[in-house]
Every structure is written in structure tokens, then in C-alpha cells.
């Protein structure tokens, strides 16, 4: 049991650090609240969806921005989607960069867009690793027989 409590503490600390560092926001909490017996893997499911969606969008974005004449409306739509989905899982740093990206898009600033794309990619990979770690820890905890206290 000692291991379990330790793991629980670790998980809590890690989660709170994610919140403190601004990777996640309240929306993630809401997600976690939505998870219950009927949907035990809800958070993981949604986040995985987000990952798939985001990777697709990022690919699209890189492709769009590599082209000679950039279709800013298309880029804007992609960024908008990314913003919506990131805000829905509470990945607020990604969301913030998305907002900046959108602004650059409106100004049709190619350099800014490329810069933002890099930032988004960075933030995305960061949040992805963080979340994956989180889920891993949760899994371990479950495996050890503990439960996530909320």
C-alpha cells in the first residue's frame, strides 16, 4: 500500500505541476470529471483523439505553409480547428500559440506563421509527452491497485 500512496502522491504532484506550468487548464479537470464508470477510459480516449487530430492538422499546416502561394483561409481554418480541440482538452499553451498563429494568419505574415507553427509543434510535443507520462503513471497506479483520487 505504501507504494500505492507514493504513486498517488507522485501522480498528484505531477498533475498539479502540469497545471502550474500552464500545460493544462480547468477544462482538463472537467474532462476528468466526466470520466466515470460508464466511460472509464474517457480522458485517454479524448486525448488520443486530440493527438490524432492535432497531428493531422499539423501535417496539413506544414504542407500548406510550404506551398508557394499560401492559402491563408485554409491555414486559418486548420488553426481554428486546432485551437478548438486543444481548448477542449485544456491544452492551453497550444491554444495560446494557436491564437497568436491566427493573428499572424489574419495579417498574412508568413514568417510569423512559420514561427508559430514551430512553436505549436514544440508545445504539442511537450504536452503530448507530459500527457503520455501522466497516463502511464495512472496506468501504473491502476495496475498497482490504487485509484486516482480527485
Amino acid at each position, binding site marked *: 500500500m505504501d507504494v500505492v500512496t507514493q504513486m498517488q502522491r507522485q501522480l498528484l504532484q505531477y498533475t498539479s505541476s502540469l497545471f502550474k506550468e500552464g500545460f493544462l487548464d*480547468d*477544462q482538463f479537470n*472537467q*474532462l476528468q470529471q*466526466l470520466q*466515470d*464508470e460508464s*466511460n472509464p477510459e*474517457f480522458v485517454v*480516449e*479524448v486525448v488520443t*483523439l*486530440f493527438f*490524432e*487530430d492535432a497531428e493531422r492538422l499539423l501535417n496539413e499546416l506544414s504542407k500548406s505553409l510550404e506551398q508557394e502561394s499560401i492559402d491563408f483561409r485554409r491555414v486559418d*481554418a486548420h488553426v*481554428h*480547428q486546432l*485551437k*478548438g*480541440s486543444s*481548448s*477542449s*482538452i*485544456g491544452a492551453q499553451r497550444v491554444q495560446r500559440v494557436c491564437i497568436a498563429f491566427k493573428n499572424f494568419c489574419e495579417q498574412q505574415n508568413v514568417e510569423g506563421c512559420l514561427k508559430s507553427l514551430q512553436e505549436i509543434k514544440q508545445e504539442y510535443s511537450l504536452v503530448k509527452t507530459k500527457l503520455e507520462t501522466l497516463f502511464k503513471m495512472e496506468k501504473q497506479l491502476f495496475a498497482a491497485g490504487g485509484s486516482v483520487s480527485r
Partner: protein
Amino acid sequence: MATTKFRHVFGRLWGFATSCKKSSSSNPIGTRILQRDVEKEEFQFASTLCLSSYYSVFVVRLAIMVMLAILIGLLTILTWHFTKIYTTKSLNSLAYDLRYELLQRPILRMWNILNSTSEITIAQVKLSQYVIRSHGNLTTQEDQVEMYEAMRAVTWALFASRKALNSITVKYNNGFVQAFHRDIKDNNTFYIYSDLDNYSIGASGYNNSELNYSSLSSQESSWNDNDNKSTVWYRQPLDPVTGERIGKPMQIAPEDSIHIAGLSQVPDGVASWRVAVSKFTDSPLLSAALPVWDSSNKSIVAVVGVTTALYSVGQLMKELVELHSGHMYLTSLEGYLLATSTDAPLLDNSTQPPKLKMAVDCENEVIRLGAEYLRRSSGNKFPPSHEVHVANVRLGHDRYYIDSFFLNLKRLPLVGVIIIPRKHILGQVDERAFKTLVILISASMCIIVIGWVCILILTNGVSKEMKLRAELISQLEARRKAEASSNYKSQFLANMSHELRTPMAAIIGLLDILMSDDCLTNEQCATVTQIRKCSTALLRLLNNILDISKVESGKLVLEDAEFDLGRELEGLVDMFSVQCINHSVETVLDLSDDMPKLVRGDSARVVQIFANLINNSIKFTPSGHVILRGWFENPNPCSDSANFLMEEKKLQCAQKTRAKQYENHAKRTSERDKKAVLWFEVDDTGCGIDPSKWDSVFESFEQADPSTTRLHGGTGLGLCIVRSLVNKMGGEIKVVKKEGPGTLMQLYLRLDTAGDDTEQHCLVDIANNGLVVLLALHGNIGRSITSKWLQQNGVFTMEASEWNGLTQILRELFHTRSSSGTNNGFDVHYPIPESLKSRLLSIQEIRHPVFVIAVDIGLLDLSTDIWKEQLNFLHRYLGLAKFIWVLNHDTSNTIKLELRRKGYMMTVSKPLYKAKIVHILEEVIKERNHEMQKKNMDELHVHESDYTHCDAASSDDSDISESAPCNPVSSTEKFEQFDLLSRYRINNCLIGLTDEHSEVKTPRKEDSYQNNHNSPKSLSAEQAYFPREAHQGEDSESRGKEEHRIIRGLGRPANGKKSLEGLRILLAEDTPVIQRVATIMLEKMGASVVAVGDGQQAVDALNDMLGVEDFRRDSNLNERNTRSSSPQTEILSFPSYDLVLMDCQMPKMDGYEATKAIRKSEVGSGVHIPIVALTAHAMSCDEAKCLEVGMDAYLTKPIDFKLMESTILSLTRKTTS
């Protein structure tokens, strides 16, 4: 000349004009002095634009004046010029003729003189030739004498025939001289002859026939020598008529008196002319000389000379000049004066012998100047036939006409000059012309001055008007700007309030979540609660600002829906009574019975009006009461229509009559509009408002006493909103005078009455049932009002305000009836007042009385444990009377438990008002009837009745909980939790109890179903969630209204059902993450969700639904049953949706397009599916766009759980209700 004159005149005009302008601009100063202050202000207000326009006006005015001046001046000058020019021209031609004529006459005379002189000369020569020839050779002295005698006779004859002749001389070649001379001055005639002795006949040289001129001249010199030396001349006066010698000859010096023409004067042997000057006369003489040839024509025998005085010419000139004035003179070609019209001497006497004067040396000034002028103008020499005619020559001081004529005589060319003063000819004309000019100029000046004055006045007026107009325009502009900015302000506020309200709602929602968290410490919980309160206050403030800005920008549109006014007001009083109890202020609702039950209007706004007013009153009332009175506009307010209100208001009768005119007016208009005029009063016992502030308290940000802000807070917006809303509803609000401390606000609203169901059917029930009500209540006002009202409705009442009074009455009441009660410590004997006694007596007369005792929990001594004993005391009467416990909102659980344990099931929370009482009494009557029926052992009826009670309790709509064993849910804990909520809602649910009966029936099945299947966790979550809603409903009434609706909807979840149970929601969202999250959220709330990926799919899904809609409607009842049993399968078979959540940005077809398509397909079908927009754009313009395309509400991403829930609920409620 004309131009110079014109220029001159113009110059003068200009000078006059400028001086005029100066004077005209300086004159009005006197009149303007008064206006100076005004003008100064005006000037300060006037912008530079105004100033420049003023200058331009000034310039225009100046230009008009100058043009007028030029026009009039031109007219004047032209008139003058033409009139003058024609006269002058004609006069000039006339004058020329005159001058010509005048000059012609002396010249003619001259001509005559010359002619006659020459004729005489020729005649003399001819005669002399004849005489000499007839005498032949003169050889002797005698012959000579004879010849001379003959000659003398002949000469005399000629001389006598011509009176004008001055002299005739004959000089012979031998030197002998014969001459006749006429002295014009003394009119004597003389014969002059030389001494004959000295002359010999045969003088040498005379016979020389071969004379030539050169020798002749030498001869002459010899002649002259002889003459001068040797001749002796004699002068003998003659009778001028006969020629007889009348005197002795006198010896005179030769050439003494007359000039004898000699040989020298006839150099070429022809007649010669010359002007000679005589020593003896002062006038020049014209002399002619001719030689007398001998018979052989070879030698000159004698020389004949004739002289004529030019005196007569001068004389003639004088005469002419006397007639016509002016001067005339004749000169020779060289310029010597021959004759003048003056007496000036013609000869220069200074020299010896006298010589002729030049005209330029004439003593007469005019002639001299004229001559000088002529010489200047044409030089010394006149060309032949040169005539000079000059008009208007200035000589000296006057102007003259000068005309000269050239008279070309052989040997003696003459020049005649006439100088006539201009005055003589044109004097009158000039004078007249000058006068005319002066008159014209002065007249035109007058016209100009008058014109200028007129223009000045006119343009002054015009410019003033223009200035005013410009000012008006600028002020209109400023006003427009101000209005625009005010509008912008309102707009801005409206927008901002919205923007602010959204995060506020989020804050409050999150705080609710936080508060529901169990792991908060007490301290944290208190802090969060505090934050919650503050947020609510802030939200209320924002709502106020939004309301005001809405009203100001004219966007406030009042709803027009039917609502129960009484119920709304009761809810309001319920809400405020909680606040009042803390303040020890009694809140009383006092509506007259004739109030229409249902009215049409905007219930939220009506409630807002009273909420603000009551809130205001409570704020300023530290103790006492706040009464909300309401009555229906009565055509005859003084008639005793059994209205106890009137009785209550006897004190205020004075102001009522004052208000009557308002009422009458209002009544008249209301009759026209078919609207009911409802009067309300909010009466408090607070600090009151200073009468001077009665009007201004309704202004924005105005408070009666600014210092109270510190004490009570507030922004001063409340009353402003109230007045705006009241005015909007066609009413008025004012503060009226009140007896005693406090404020009395009176207002009336004009609302449509919905039907005329004003009959009080419920009141009939409680009357005549033998009810005796004992009101043991704190709060005098409320108790007395209730008591009076009950009495009016035929219910017997008694009142007690404290424990002792209650016990006394109880004892008297029941001890007299049945002396079964035993005395205990509380039974203190008080003397019973007479009035009470009589009442007791009258009660005893009632058959089968039913006693109802309403006991205020506050009458018990709650501070100690005495209340339990008091309760025990009262318990004794349980069988005899029905007890109704009036609870405070903060009554502790232990007391409630105790009451319940003892079997008191009828509890009601404060405040008591009619609807509650009616309901209680109805319950009492029902129970009695039920009991009576029970006695008849009617099983079926009992079952039905129980069912009803159970239902009412289970839905927890009422806290009048009866002992219903079938109700496991109404546990005490739950009871407590719902206490506040129920207090607010009680009336709605009570009244609507019977109505809901049928509705509730069906869901009950579901309820039980849910109860069984819900996990305990979710149930507790629901329970935790629920009181929050109740809190909200209490804190903000505008929110409360919405919440109220929600709560009614949530009536079912209280039994464990989810809030969105049974709703089918179509979710159109392309982002998978959001789609998943939203789906889970909605499913958690109990809704079934169908998710689609884009707008097109959404539209398709809905179109399918519309197709089956008709069928659905037909089998409505049937379907309901099916649905409740297996909702999931039903959805699959009939994909009908209660609501659509629509993302705005989607591929293929975005949310706006999809919504438009859906709305289009709905046209004509009468269906309106609620569509809620989901968007990541958090701008109000997006919201506007959403609403524009036909969406009903608007949610922003990330989706807020609470907000979504409440939005969906409000929309689905709206459509189903």
C-alpha cells in the same frame, strides 16, 4: 473733360462714401452698448468659422454698397452730362454766329472806308489830271493861280461830298501844296496851302519825261529839301458847308497839322494804302496816295493823297460792344492796333513822332491778354485765311471766347479779333448746369445714403439671422454629436456588459463547483461563499447597467406574455422576507382581492420593478415594516367595496384625493386602451427621503443622501431602472407624502388583463366552513392585515402576539369547551379582556368549529430549552385544533425534527400571505372532509387523496409536509436543503399543484425507474448541485427568474433524474475532440446525442425528422409511452431532435449556412427546433451573426458544463411549455 469731371465726382463720392461708412459703422455703437455683453458671449461661442462668415458678410455688404454708389453716381453724371452737352452745343453754335456777325460789321465798315477812300483818291486823281491837262502849259503865274484855283474848287467839291474824309492833299511837282483838312474833334474845316511865291512854274525836272524810279527818288529828295526849307504854309478855316473862306489864313509850319502825301508814297505810280499816324489825332489814319500823271503820261505832275480817320470804325465797335459786351479790335498783319472797342489810346505817345501800338502792348488788359494768347497759340504770323475760334480761354479771371478773322486787303491785310466773355453767352447756362449738378449730386447722395442705410439694416438682419442660423446649425451638430456619443456610450455599455457578464457567469459557476467540493476547509468555504456573494453583487450591478443602457439605447423590448402577478409578487416577498428577518423588518404583501389574477406583460420586468423598490426600502429601513400594497384601479375608490385596504388608508386620504386626478386620468386612458391600471405602493418605515429629492431620486446615479452610500452601498441605478420600466409600461412612479417616518412610493402600471377571471373561487372554499383561526404571530402589521382579510372572507379570527396571549386564548377557548386540560407551569392566569370574551362567546355559537392555530415559531423561547416544554404544552391541544407552524428560514433542524416527531405536519415558512393561508385552510378543510369521509370508510377516495399528497411531497414543491408514509425521500436532511428553494417556489407549486397533478403522473414512472438505476454517486452529485440553484434564485431575482424555470424543470431530477433526461440532441461538430467531449457531457446530463461531422449531415438528419413530424404528432400519446420505456430505440427509429448544437466553423457547410437551411425548411411547418451555436469566437458580433441566421442561443468553446446545461434547459423548456 467729361472723364476728368467724372473722376472728380467719383472721387468726391468715394470720399463721401467712406466717411458715411465710418459714421454708419460708428453710429450704432450706442445701441450696441447694451448688447455688448450678449455679443461678447456670442463672440466667445462663435468659432473661427462663424467669424470668417461674418467677415464675408461684411465684405459682401460693402460691395453691394459700392456698386449702388457707382450706379447712382453714373446715372447722375450721365443725366447731367447729356443735358449740358446739348445746350452747350447749340449755344456754342449760336454764339459763334453772333461773334461772326459782330465782327463782320466793323470789318464791313472798314471795308467801306477803304473803298470810299480809294474811290475818292481815284476820283481826285482823275479830276486833277483833267484840270491840269486842260490848263496845258503853265507859263505864267496867273495861269498857275488859275489852275490852282480850279484845282481847289474841284478838290473842295470832292472833299465836301465825303464827310468821312479827314483830308485831301494835292502836292504838285513844283512843291505847291493844296489840302483840305477836317478836324473831327472840333468839327472845323481848314484849307491849307503853301506859299505860292516860292514856286516857279518851270521848275526843273518836272518835265522830264524819261523819269525812272531811281531818278525820281533823287528828285524827291530834292523836293523834300526844298519843302522843308523854304515853304511857308497857311491854314485858313472854311465854312464846312459852303467852303467859303471865313477866317484869315494862318501861317503854320509845313506838315504841321496834316500829313501831305508826297512822291515817296507813290513809288510805283499806283495807289497805295497805308496806315498813318497823325500828330494831331490820337487815332490812326488810313491814307491812300496816287500820282497824277501829265498828259503824256510821262511824268508825275502831282500826288494826290486822301486820308480817312479810322475813328469811326472804333466808334462802331464801341457801339457794338456796348450792346453785346466784350472787346473787339483790329490790327494790321504786323499786329499794330488799328481800332479797338475801348478808349485805350492806340498810339504810343512816348515816342516822337507817335507810333502805332502793338496789340500786345495795349493798355486794355483784356485785349492785351487776348493778343498775347493769340500770339502764343499761333505765333506772330497769321497764315492767310487763318481764322481762330477759341472758346473758353481764361484771360485774367474770366473765361472768354476769342475769334479772329483775317481780312486780306491789298497792301493792307487786316486782322479782326473779337473777345467775348463766356459769361455773356453761357453764363446762365453754366450757372444752371452747376446748380443742376449740385442738385443731382445731393439727390443721389441722399439716395445712396438711404440705400446704404436700408442695405445696412437689411443685411444686418440677414447677417444676424445667418449668424443665429449658423449657431443653430452648430448647436444641432453638437447635439447630434452628443447624442451619438451618448448612443455610443449606451452601445458600448450594452456590449461591455454582455462581455462582462459572460465571465461573471463563468466565475459564479466555477465558484459553485468549488463550493460543492467536499474537501474545502471551513475557512476556505467561508471565503468562497464570500466571493460568491461578491460575484453575485457584481453581476447584479452589471445587469443594472445593462438594463439602463438597454433602456437608454431604446433596445429594451417588453415581453408580452401572460403571467400571474400575485404569484410573482408573493415569490418576491418570500425572497425578501429572508433579508428582512435579519433586519428585524417585517415584509408584508397586501394585495386587494379585486386584483386581476392573470395579466399580460413582461413578468421579469414587473418583478424587477418591485424587487428594486423593496430592496431599496429594506436597505433604508432598520426596523419596522415594508408593505407592498396593490389594488386594482377602482372607478369609485370611496365606495365601500368591502375593501379593507381603504380602511387601512384612511390616514392617507388626503394624498389619495390628490392622487385621484392621476387616477381619473389614468382610468380614462385605460378605458380607451382596455388596459387595467394597477396601483401599487411600497411603504416603509425607514429614514425617508427629503421632499426636495423626491424627483431626483429617479435619476441615474442619484441618491437621496450621498453619505448613505458608505452605509448601504448601492449605485443609484435601481430607482432609475424602476422609473424607466414603469414609464415603459405606461405608468408613473412618484414619492408621495406619508404620515410618520419612512417613504411611500406610489406607482401605477398599465397592463393588459388576460380575461376577466377576477372572481375569487378559492375564497369561497374557506368561508362558511366554521373555521376559527388563531393567529399567534409576531409582526403586528402582517398579523392585522391577515386577520382583517380573513374576517372579511367570513373566517373568524383571533390574534395573539406573544406566548402568554396565546396560552390565555387557548385556555379560554378550550377550557370552556372541555375542561380536560390540566394546568402546568405555563398556565398563568391573566384577566381576560372583554373584547376577547365576547369573541369567545361568538365562537361558541359556531357549530362544528374547526380551530386552526397558526403559531409563529418565534413565539417559543428558543434561546433556552423552554421551547420543548412550550411545545409539550401546545401538544395537549393537538387533537382539538389544527396547528400550523410558521417557521423562519433559519429555524434549526432540531426544532423541525421535534415538530415532525410530535406529528405537526403543517408547517409554513414566513411570511404568511393570502395564497399560503388559502392553501393551508383548504388543506385543513380537505383533511376534515377526508376525516369525515374516512368515517364513511370510502377506501377508493382515501387512496386517491393519499396519492395526491404523496405526489406533492415527493416532488418537493411544498414544505407543507403532511405525514405521508409513502414518501421516503422527504428526509429531514433534504428538507433542510430545499428549505430556501421552497420558500421561493412555494406559491407556484402550491397553486399549480392541481394543475401539475396530471403532468406529474407520467414522469413518476420514469422517476422510479431512474431512482433504481442511478448510481448513488450521481444522485449525491445532483443533490449537491441542487441547492446552489436555489441560492442563485434567491440572490438575484433576474437570474432567479430564469433559474425558477430551470428549477421547475428540475423538479424531476430531485428524484434522481438527470437534468436533460429524455432530450435528443443533434451535435454538429467537426473536431473529433470537441465532439467527444460534448457528447459525453450531454450524455452525462441524460440526453441522448447524435453527432454528425458537418453542417450538411446535420441538415439531412433534421430533414429526416421533419418528414416524420406529422406522424409523430398524431401518435403523440402513444409515442410518449414508448419513449419512456425505451428511449434509445425510439431515437433510432425516429430520429427527432429536441435541440441542435451547431458548431459555426465546419467543413462542407458551416454552422451559419446549415442553420439557414434548417430554418428555411422549417418555414410553413410550424416547427422551430432550437439551435445553439458553438463557437470559438468570443465576440459579440459573432453572437449577433448567430442570432441573425436564426440560432437561438450561443455557447463559446471550451464548453462550460453549467452554461450548456442551463442554456439547453431554458430552450427546451420554452418550446415544450
